[in-house]
């Protein structure tokens, strides 16, 4: 595939920063009690969301996970709408009914985060079928974690998509941990990518902290999908810097892994690459960061100022058509 040009590289850099700053601020706001619920962030894993999104068209679809803020931000979702939803506010994207783990933004093709692991793997073939039927040339990406690859829907979904040559890209974010259980203790055979061979589709293992590697692998999978050749499986190896959920004491792993993650920071890595190629200098980097911070602070101010839902709105949005009394 042709390598991304300077504009695309700058966009990826800003997008990763946007995900990072959004989630770091969300963590702080959660710790301060401003955001209710359970918060799962992808700090350290930004290159996967951004590398994948960089290979997609605006009208392509994404199915996401419980750790999905990055996927939505990278797909171009509204920061104000997302932050207000995390706050449970009336003007959140889902009017406060979804929250962090059950959010969707259909306007950018983001068909839903998911509180149930690997569920998107069986939804994706249907989206692919719809694309094929409508001859729209779109693709659908479904994200899932390494732990989720051990659920049945992963296998059912990959089989169906491969069988019917559907335009689906399965993206496994292998962050080494299924909640608190190590990859080696939950996953036979070691490699998720190798499972693709059983279904006769390409399976590729990439460095998930290298946004360019992720973008390149995704671009090839997307090209194959658009050409009608069927699905691909990408396993992106990455490291989450934070706990499974906000407040996770992480007794199951040592500090060395997080230190390794920080050494392999995907944002610093792209920044160094851009500086080396003279596509970015320190002053420009500072301006990009300042602009991203301003966007996120605007989203937070918007969320803070937004109204809570009316309690009785808990009874709306269930059906499109329901004129009967209960």
């Amino acid at each position: 595939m042709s390598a991304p040009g300077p504009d695309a590289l700058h966009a990826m850099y800003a997008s990763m920063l946007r995900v990072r700053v959004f989630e770091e601020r969300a963590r702080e706001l959660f710790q301060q009690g401003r955001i209710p619920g359970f918060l799962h962030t992808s700090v350290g894993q930004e290159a996967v969301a951004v590398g994948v999104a960089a290979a997609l068209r605006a009208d392509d679809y994404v199915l996401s996970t419980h750790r999905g803020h990055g996927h939505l931000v990278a797909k171009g979702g509204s920061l104000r709408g997302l932050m207000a939803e995390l706050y449970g506010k009336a003007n959140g994207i889902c009017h406060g009914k979804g929250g962090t783990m059950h959010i969707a933004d259909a306007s950018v093709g983001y068909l839903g985060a998911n509180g149930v692991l690997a569920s998107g793997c069986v939804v994706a073939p249907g989206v692919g079928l719809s694309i094929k039927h409508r001859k729209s040339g779109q693709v659908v990406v479904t994200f899932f974690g390494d732990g989720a690859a051990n659920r049945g829907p992963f296998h059912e979904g990959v089989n169906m998509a491969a069988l019917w040559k559907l335009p689906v890209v399965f993206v496994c974010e292998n962050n080494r941990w299924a909640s608190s259980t190590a990859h080696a203790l939950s996953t036979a055979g070691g490699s998720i990518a190798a499972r693709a061979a059983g279904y006769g589709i390409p399976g590729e293992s990439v460095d998930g902290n290298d946004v360019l590697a992720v973008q390149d692998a995704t671009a090839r999978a997307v090209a194959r999908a658009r050409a009608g050749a069927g699905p691909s499986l990408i396993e992106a190896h990455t490291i989450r810097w934070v706990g499974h959920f906000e407040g996770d004491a992480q007794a199951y792993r040592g500090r060395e892994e997080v230190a390794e993650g920080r050494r392999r920071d995907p944002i610093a890595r792209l920044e160094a690459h851009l500086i080396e190629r003279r596509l970015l200098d320190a002053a420009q980097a500072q301006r990009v960061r300042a602009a991203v911070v301003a966007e996120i602070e605007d989203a937070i101010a918007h969320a803070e100022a937004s109204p809570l839902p009316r309690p009785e709105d808990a009874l709306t949005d269930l059906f499109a058509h329901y004129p009967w009394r209960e």
Partner: protein
Amino acid sequence: MARIDFGDALNLALREEMRRDPRVYCLGEDIVLGLPFGVTKGLIDEFGAARVLNAPISEAAIVGSAFGAAVTGLVPVVDMHFADFVTCAMDEVANQIAKSRYMFGGQIDCPLTLRMPYGIGKSGGGHHSNSVEAWFVNLPGVKVAIPSTPADARGLLKTAIRDPDPVLVFEHRGLYRVVGEVPDAETLVPLGEAAIARPGRDVTVIATARMVHESLEAARRLAEEGIEVEVVDPRSLVPLDRDTLAASVRRTHRVVVAEEGPMRGSAGAWLAWVVMEDSFDELDAPIVRVAAPNVPIPFSPPLESFVMPGADDVVAAVRQVVK
């Protein structure tokens, strides 16, 4: 007015809706041959393999993919093969299909139909016989239709397919070969509109699916004793036509609720509560329920017959409420 059986009426509904709307497609195990009950037989000849999809034995992917297709522009009709197998796709039904519109603040429509062949009979045994409609009555976000006649089967399935929300259509497998009159013209049966299957002044029997037929048989026998039973068929449980139920109770003041599923926590238990809430002052006797005992459905014919509610049980229940 043609006389056709329940299965052919469903087949007719599928053909009519697939002709009307190119977005409608059928999906399920063995549906090209129309197995196991013949409902989808011959669709492949008219609509081709792109719209009559024989799926791998992957219930989660069948139902999950139907959801994905429904939210992106298609109108899937899933054949669950046996309703019992929905357990293999329960996340897809209960967490994804039922909740997504709500969780996403109304952003998506999910025009999806799940055809649920279900019910006791012919020694189907524990994994092929259960009446699981109560699970879905208890699930906010799906609608539940449960026809008893060929005309209603056709009309309700057509309505389900056209509905913008997910609808489960429970098709009792003991009814597939029941013959009845079906209008020549395309006729929709709305959700939330009960039918009076037989008028009567003494007792209201609220019954669903096969139990409508058993209750009509009971009514014939009781009429010989001078007891006039009104049989009310809700036809859909969600939404429920409470007004027709209440109007019947105002005429009879006595109620039996008859269903095939197990007694505990059932659809019938909910119907009895609805009657209590809407019509308590009208009732002259406690409501009596007919349902299966709280066991899985057994295999051996005498065991199966023992747990299968029938006309005798309805007769006994009616005698109890008029005592």
